């Protein structure tokens, strides 16, 4: 079993990315994929949207899985493993989660050790300056610890602005693996799928 964490700030496009990649992953690999969504509240919006697209989703509500719900996350993965035996478990935490904390939580997973844990952090390039200004420390931490940075919504800004955002990300982690995408308009999504499938 592999774990794919799709993290990113509120409104960065996590759900859109999951919707645009899962079907292709299944088509290409024929792997069994399970999705865990951590929403706010007892009725999750993101999980409802995914279910309307025909995906089966396990919900974790009422908190953030990188901290107070860590145990619930591990239990949910174990239940999925026992009942469904997925090849890939996709975890979409809230927009507040620290993906590195989820990676650490997985060290306590009581089931079979995952073959791989891959963490993506999605950056909304349109709002990056304002989000970074308000939350520079946690955002920098996300960037430094992610395996792959997805600069999302690239079709909504100029190439100059995009270059500026990329330079800012590089200034935080000059070796970051970055893919520029538009999850909504299917730009470079195949590159993301390649990265998931081939790495």
């Amino acid at each position: 079993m592999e774990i794919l964490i799709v993290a990113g700030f509120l409104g960065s496009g996590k759900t859109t990315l999951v919707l645009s990649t899962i079907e292709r992953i299944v088509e290409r690999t024929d792997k069994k994929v399970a999705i865990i969504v951590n929403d706010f509240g007892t009725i999750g919006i993101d999980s409802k949207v995914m279910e309307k697209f025909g995906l089966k989703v396990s919900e974790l509500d009422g908190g953030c899985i990188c901290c107070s719900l860590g145990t619930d996350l591990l239990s949910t993965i174990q239940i999925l493993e026992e009942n469904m035996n997925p090849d890939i478990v996709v975890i979409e935490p809230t927009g507040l989660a620290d993906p590195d904390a989820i990676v650490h939580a997985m060290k306590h997973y009581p089931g079979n050790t995952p073959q791989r844990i891959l963490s993506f952090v999605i950056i909304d390039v349109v709002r990056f300056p304002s989000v970074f200004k308000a939350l520079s420390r946690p955002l920098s931490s996300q960037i430094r610890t992610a395996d792959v940075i997805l600069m999302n919504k690239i079709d909504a800004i100029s190439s100059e602005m995009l270059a500026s955002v990329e330079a800012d990300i590089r200034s935080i982690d000059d070796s970051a693996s970055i893919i520029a995408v538009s999850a909504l308009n299917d730009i470079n999504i195949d590159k993301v799928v390649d990265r998931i499938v081939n790495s």
Partner: protein
Amino acid sequence: MITSDFVAYVISATTTPSSLVSKNEITERLTTLMIEIARECDAIGATLIGHIKCVLDANEYLAVSVTDASGHASVRGDLTNDIDHVFVVINAMLYGLTYEQVKSIVDELVIKHLSFDTTVRIEELDKKQSPIHFHC
């Protein structure tokens, strides 16, 4: 990414209008609702709009979201039929205001846009949450 001024206000809004609501009208109302929540929160001092979003849960679905106060909303899903019952889940997540301020704005705008010719019932879906609970 929690600071002490982060607020997540999560509710459902339920109403049954006396007549069918057209798909265009409900789409327009939800879009306006999301945009106005963002604008009003911004106007009274929100330092950062995180994500303000809703989903209309019916046989089909409609999701609307905004990430700033610019007046731009993203709409996903497409209703093909008019609806006779409205059940909407709304999340307002932002920085710089108190829970009470956000609740006041959201509740007032929900009543304004989703009452139709009757009343709308608002239910908080996560009363236990607090900034400390979500602190990462």
